[in-house]
């Protein structure tokens, strides 16, 4: 309505610029009459409109705006929180990645050390097994050699005993008294020259 009044005033001013002071009021009243505009009614409508606008602003627009503002703040806070969470998540992700990489490195080191230890242990075990087997082989060889020497000695002794016994029997049977007497004489000479 205000804009209509202003338009009306501009139209009027453009139509008769030379009758600016005295004739202007009459012309306004004439136009207002032609358009059916009455001052008190217009004033009442303006008051009503102000009241309605105030009520709308006070009880509708303002709470809605407050709600919108609150929601915008909440959304902004949520977005900010989300950004923070995203940053934290990224940081945590980076930290976890670093920890994982560190754990992987440590794990690889542990595996390498374990493999190294296992290899050294295996080599040590193999070396000990070889030494033990060599010792056992040496002992077995010594035992075999001893047994062989023992058997040879026993065989030699037995053979010597058999030879001596056989010789004794043969000589005791076959030597004549004359041969014994001659042997006795030679033995006496031997004993005399000792």
């Amino acid at each position, binding site marked *: 309505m205000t804009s209509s009044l202003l338009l009306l005033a501009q139209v009027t001013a453009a139509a008769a610029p030379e009758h600016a002071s005295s004739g202007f009021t009459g012309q306004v009243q004439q136009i207002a009459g032609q358009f059916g505009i009455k001052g008190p009614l217009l004033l009442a409508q303006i008051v009503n409109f102000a009241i309605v606008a105030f009520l709308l602003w006070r009880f509708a627009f303002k709470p809605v705006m407050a709600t919108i503002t609150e929601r915008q703040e909440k959304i902004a806070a949520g977005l900010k929180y989300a950004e923070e969470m995203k940053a934290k998540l990224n940081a945590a992700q980076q930290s976890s990645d670093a920890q994982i990489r560190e754990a992987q490195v440590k794990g690889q080191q542990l595996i390498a050390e374990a493999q190294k230890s296992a290899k050294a242990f295996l080599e040590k075990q193999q070396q000990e097994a070889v030494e033990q087997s060599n010792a056992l082989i040496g002992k077995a060889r010594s035992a075999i050699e001893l047994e062989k020497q023992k058997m040879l000695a026993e065989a030699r002794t037995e053979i010597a005993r058999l030879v001596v016994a056989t010789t004794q029997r043969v*000589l*005791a049977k076959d030597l004549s008294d004359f041969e014994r007497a001659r042997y006795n004489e030679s*033995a*006496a000479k031997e004993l005399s020259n000792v």
Partner: protein
Amino acid sequence: MSAQSKKAQLLARQLFKLSLENGALAPERVTGALAYLEQHRPANPLLVLRAYQRLVAIELARSAAVVEHAGSIADTVLQSLAGSFSARYHRPITATAVANPALIAGLRVRVGDDLYEASIAGQLAALAAAV
């Protein structure tokens, strides 16, 4: 060893020394020593006689060469052995023959604690021990 035993040993040694003549045991002196003991009986005559007998037996063994032999052995061989052992030990040694067929052939002479072996059995034993 008791005091009586020591005295008996001492008396036996004294009697044994008196029984020697030129380093050899003389039968007359032995008879005289026994007669002395019979006339002058010591406190324990049995101990004295045993000690004296042991000393005489040792001396007889030292002055006797026991010649073990297999087969016959001539007297000349025995005399020659007695002479050689007397010269070796610087005392008169008599040779006594004892037959021992286990020797097969050869001689084994024992003078006191010394043993001399020249027999086939001894050589075979040495061979068996060496092998």
